[in-house]
């Protein structure tokens, strides 16, 4: 790896922790960002010359902090601090800084940085955009591409979001256990939103695929900081298991491929292995939660070498417990897919019938209903449901997946007629 690639990698990896520590120090997002930028510029100069520091994160924090202080002094009294080239050779100073950054400080810093992006006044899309900008360090252009908006629009969105959280009282005191749990839940759901923004993309949206990787990176980071949190294990496992299927999810022309039609040899065994190991670990805790249950469902799919090997009864049972933890018509709709496999399509149709008023505008409701009706041999009703689904499709891939069913019905009608 070239010097530059190594430095970029180290800076990218250090960013969340460094930004989080600088934010604690300055208590101001813009100042923290400026200080971090400054430290990065100095790293690009100093590291190729002096070699990599022993702890790049501690180096960036210390240099960023000193640079900002330096700037203040320069404007006030014109007295400079020692240059950072000297600083980076001061092994003792670096070690001491690294010491201070260990453990609890680091953890709550990073959690705070992520939590600030989850301000309840911000709509979900702004939360994600802000987190990608501030925590992950993605450029405005990259984020704009992922959201399919112009750079200017995204710039405005991020500026507005920053102004919004800047006005509020950022929570800088160390959180108590209850508060920490609340922050944790908000941050976990924000990470899941980032993942879904990437996951729901058409294959064409390559830029969005990167959001899945970024969400996994953030989930792993949080899990490293909070290694005993079963729901964090569950979330990380869920993201890994879902992302493992990315190469198998779309046809060459971008149509979505249903789980049971996917070429399972394209599933990423490494990601699946890690996901299964995490869910295995989480189960030992005997503290189930929605992310763990969803990961367990994904794990049952991942463990099936062929679609017909899938443990649908197990999936049905897991969805039943998810319905209790997190009641929602969408969960019931997903459960119905398992019910159709275990007890037949009529049982599934009976299960989703009461959902109609709430899910009438939901693409997947009509798609699933059409599939159950087709399975039950009620073709005319199935076609009606599919037509309805297509009119509600959000992406070309969704529409294409329904068209496959309609084509199949039409082809069967033709062959029956001839």
């Amino acid at each position, binding site marked *: 790896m070239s010097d530059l690639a190594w430095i970029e990698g180290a800076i990218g990896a250090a960013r969340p922790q460094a930004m989080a520590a600088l934010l604690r120090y300055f208590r101001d997002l813009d100042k923290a960002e400026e200080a971090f930028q400054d430290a990065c510029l100095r790293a690009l100069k100093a590291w190729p010359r002096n070699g990599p520091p022993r702890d790049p994160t501690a180096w960036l924090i210390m240099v960023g902090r000193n640079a900002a202080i330096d700037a203040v002094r320069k404007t006030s009294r014109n007295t400079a601090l020692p240059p950072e080239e000297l600083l980076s050779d001061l092994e003792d100073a670096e070690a001491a800084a690294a010491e201070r950054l*260990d453990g609890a400080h680091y953890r709550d810093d990073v959690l705070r940085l992520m939590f600030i992006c989850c301000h309840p006044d911000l709509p979900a899309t702004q939360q994600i955009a802000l987190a990608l900008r501030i925590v992950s360090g993605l450029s405005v252009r990259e984020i704009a591409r992922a959201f399919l908006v112009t750079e200017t629009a995204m710039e405005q969105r991020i500026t507005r979001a920053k102004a919004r959280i800047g006005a509020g009282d950022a929570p800088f005191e160390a959180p108590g256990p209850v508060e920490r749990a609340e922050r944790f839940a908000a941050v976990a759901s924000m990470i899941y939103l980032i993942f879904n923004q990437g996951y729901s993309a058409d294959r064409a949206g390559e830029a969005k695929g990167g959001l899945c990787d970024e969400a996994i990176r953030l989930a*792993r980071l949080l899990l*490293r900081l909070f290694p005993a949190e079963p729901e964090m294990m569950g979330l990380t496992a869920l993201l890994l298991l879902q992302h493992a299927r990315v190469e198998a999810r779309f046809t060459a022309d971008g149509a979505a491929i249903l789980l049971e039609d996917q070429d399972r040899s394209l599933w990423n065994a490494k990601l699946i*292995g890690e996901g299964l*190991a995490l869910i295995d670990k989480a189960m030992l805790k005997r503290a189930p939660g929605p992310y763990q249950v969803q990961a367990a469902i994904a794990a049952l799919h991942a463990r099936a070498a062929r679609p017909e090997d899938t443990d649908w009864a197990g999936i049905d049972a897991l969805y039943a417990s998810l319905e209790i933890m997190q009641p929602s018509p969408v969960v019931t709709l997903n459960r119905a897919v398992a019910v159709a496999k275990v007890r037949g399509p009529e049982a599934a149709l009976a299960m989703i019938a009461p959902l109609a008023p709430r899910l009438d505008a939901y693409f997947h409701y009509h798609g699933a209903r059409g599939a159950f009706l087709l399975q039950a041999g009620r073709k005319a009703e199935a076609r009606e449901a599919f037509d309805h689904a297509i009119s509600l499709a959000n992406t070309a891939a969704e529409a294409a997946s329904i068209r496959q069913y309609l084509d199949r019905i039409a082809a069967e009608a033709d062959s029956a007629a001839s």
Partner: protein
Amino acid sequence: MLYAILCYNQEDVTSAWSKAHDDEVMAKLGVVQERLAKEGRLGPVARLMPTTAATTLRKDRDPPLVLDGPFAETKEQLLGFYIVDCDSLDGALDIAKDLGKANPGGSYEIRPIALFNPGPAGQEPAAP
């Protein structure tokens, strides 16, 4: 003499590698391993899952305590290891240098092996 080459690196850096970069590093390491295998000097090789998948059992008490995460909180994490057969530390260091050229960053700890029993499990290279 058998030596373990223990691979330490910053996990948050290596886990942020793109798949393309990861593949490239693994391919380069594969070249070195292939040569060592031909020379009859390569023993078992393992790449470990991230430390987030690790569990630690404290057995200094009864019942033992199960903890999440790796045993030691360190700046660089144990990410894998090689077992190699060399006449001397010099030879083992040469191998480590070759591996390091293929995969810069982090450290290798070269540690002579006192007792080695490869055991019957995992003899075929395979996904776990």
